[in-house]
């Protein structure tokens, strides 16, 4: 097990290096630079800025400098936001995005699994249809529409929640629902279909034949196996949701990390682009690893060291 995890960590490092390298070169190929603006700078000032930020060095020197900086976990200053370093941006933005993300994931997982299980147990009954209509709506309504909808009815018309911003718990409810509705719907559908599959298995029939109550069958035998696909989906979902959603953060005015993914690219803010990319990649790779470990716990048939799933 330990050996296998070690091997996985090594692969992770290689993946990370590939991501960093690809990002670095794509970023430099893109026309423009951090000082591109509508009002063009006098060339002397631009040359001076390039020299200060090391942008006048050959690409391999910049690339080398950059790798060294990542090793020291120092992404340098932001080109655009002079008052902050990239480390500041991440350490201030991530907790906000993560708090919102956790709330959304909790909502999504709790309601998604409950809806899915109800739908499967009451297969082809009205409960099933209701749950699946909710799920279809959740998947097909984009989060920004959901967000505006929630703002309009729950905040402006009914006055229950504030329209936007990030100050108290009440402020977090609407964005969490908007962010969590799509994953919730997805989880509900995943749970339902895998529950249906599991329920038709022989061992469930055996359990029934043994005379176990349907409650025990569901909780002890069915759910555990039915959750595997959900766990698979949770890995990338967690990484994606914890690092923030550009759209939701923009609509609700939340000072999270999500907006930096998009704005740093249009600003050509090289250091921020690299910082958030590296940070996100690490989270993503770690969460995939955690998912694999979780497999082993939920389903003892899957052994990390067994080579089948461990690769």
């Amino acid at each position: 097990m330990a050996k296998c995890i070690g091997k996985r960590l090594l692969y992770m490092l290689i993946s990370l290096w590939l991501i960093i390298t690809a990002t670095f070169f794509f970023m430099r190929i893109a026309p423009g630079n951090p000082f591109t603006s509508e009002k063009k700078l006098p060339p002397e000032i631009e040359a001076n800025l390039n020299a200060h930020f090391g942008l006048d060095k050959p690409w391999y020197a910049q690339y080398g400098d950059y790798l060294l900086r990542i090793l020291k976990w120092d992404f340098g200053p932001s080109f655009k936001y002079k008052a902050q370093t990239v480390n500041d941006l991440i350490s201030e933005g991530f907790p906000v995005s993560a708090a919102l993300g956790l709330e959304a994931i909790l909502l999504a997982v709790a309601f998604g699994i409950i809806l899915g299980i109800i739908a499967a147990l009451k297969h082809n009954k009205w409960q099933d249809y209701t749950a699946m209509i909710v799920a279809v709506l959740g998947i097909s309504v984009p989060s920004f529409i959901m967000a505006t909808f929630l703002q309009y009815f729950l905040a402006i018309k009914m006055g229950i929640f504030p329209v936007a911003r990030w100050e108290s718990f009440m402020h977090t409810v609407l964005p969490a629902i908007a962010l969590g509705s799509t994953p919730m719907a997805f989880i509900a559908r995943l749970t339902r279909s895998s529950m249906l599959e599991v329920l038709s298995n022989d061992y469930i029939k055996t359990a029934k034949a043994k005379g176990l109550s349907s409650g025990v069958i569901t909780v002890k035998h069915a759910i555990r196996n039915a959750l595997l696909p959900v766990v698979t989906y949770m890995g990338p979902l967690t990484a994606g949701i914890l690092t923030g959603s550009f759209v939701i953060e923009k609509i609700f005015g939340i000072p999270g990390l999500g907006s930096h993914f998009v704005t740093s690219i249009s600003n050509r803010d090289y250091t921020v682009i690299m910082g958030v990319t590296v940070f996100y990649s690490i989270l993503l790779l770690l969460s995939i690893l955690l998912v694999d470990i979780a497999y082993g716990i939920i389903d003892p048939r899957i052994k990390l060291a067994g080579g089948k799933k461990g690769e």
Partner: protein
Amino acid sequence: MKKRLSVLFSMLLVLSMFLAACGGNDNAGNDNGGDKDGSKSDVPQELRVNINSEPPSLHPGLAKDSTSGTVLRQTFEGLTRIGKDGKPIEAAAEKIEVSEDQKVYTFTLRDAQWSNGDPVVAKDFEYAWKWALDPNNQSEYAYQLYYIKGAEAANTGSGSMDDVGIVAKDDKTLEVTLENPTPFFLELTAFYTYLPINSKIAEANKDWANDAGENYTSNGPFVMTEWSHSDKIVLEKNDTYWDKDAVKLEKIEMIMINDPNTELSMFDNGELHWAGAPTGALPTDAMQALKDDGRLITKPIAGIYNYKFNTTVEPFNNANIRKAFTFAINRQEIIDNILQGEQLPAQAIVPPTMFPENEEGYFADNDAEKAKEYLQKGLEELGLKDVSELPAITLSYNTSEGHQKIAQAIQDMWKQNLGVEVTLDNQEWAVFLDKMHSLDYQVGRMGWLGDFNDAINFLEMYRDADGGNNDTGWESKKFQDLLAQSAVETDAEKRQQLLKDAEAVIMDEMPVMPIYFYTENWVQADNLKDVVISGLGDVQYKWAYFE
């Protein structure tokens, strides 16, 4: 049958959830905007506005964008400040003397204090300006100081900082020597690159401007007491400000919401006192409704939206072709149907806030007849028989829904009025700028906003073909001569005339096609008074109050 019923039932159930959400409003919906207890006389003097996004820097020497400018204008005080009537008035300086040749300005400072109690001295100005000019400090807006003698040389490294014409004679006297007589210099001294810095603090701590706190000292009407990055900025009245009796607001909360719909919703919900320009934006879809309610406020500002022609490639190397394209569009129609913000059709380069007669401009809007004449003339000069022989034409703009709608309308107008087929092409902002600056385009969209209130702002960029912001490849000896004469002219009226003549040269050759002059549109709380917006579109809260 039973199954169908159950489907129907479940759908009803879902539907009822949504319907339930629609009912029962009215409790918080008295959306007159802004303060709910507006009729009371003891209304709290606390303003909540949206500034859209995080200000990139609140260091006067590093700031270079309107968001940072908005904050700095409230917290700092320059030698002059733009007054309620739009003219510069004495601020940190109580007396300003100008020499006969208009090249030497002597400022006498009034007794004033920084927010930490330090006196504001002439050296603070000298320090701030020289700091920005020092090439080691990466001030991207240092060129705003190039009007001062020796400043450009010192900033580009070819001269010494000691030769720069900024001298603090004593604590109260600042003497500034300029390169040329600069009639708008007192406009400039109100601009943020010219603001002072508390030299005692800044010398001790170079990161003084990175956060609110005891290091962030300022000398303006307000002090910054909180700066949560990307979230909000809180300003409070500055008790050490020399003119504090004129300041009535106790507190300003500037939040950062970068979504026009949310901004308007918050305003309607009473969570903001202001929505829209100059600090935020209104959703275009809402403009008409706000106008119909009579809530929308509109003010013209010094800015132009235009299409530039690349005069180095066919067919736009021909002035008559450029004119044909310029005359063939219907600006009013674009404004009425697409922009909906009461913008002014532009038939000139310098905005009417600077040259009032430019409301009329140099030619008539939507003059298809004239356009066809010029097209014919142009085709003959190029040796072409008819429009089908024109080379393929591409219209470029940066990716955005607004620009795209305008481009489509103009594409259609050119086709109808000139019979010319034009393809549209859009790119991401930085890619687009790169193409424009390197003349890799035929017709391209550009906008320009004035930094200070003088026509030179809108003309200077066309002086040299390779000047950074020309983008058209056009230059003219006559135009250059007129600008050169205006630079040394000390008589304000004569200078104005020279600039008008220069504008006429451009309009005669049309390297750029004016489309509209910008306006600012906003809604504000009914009881909020005396927020001052200058002709440049800058906002000041110094005199604002709630009734």
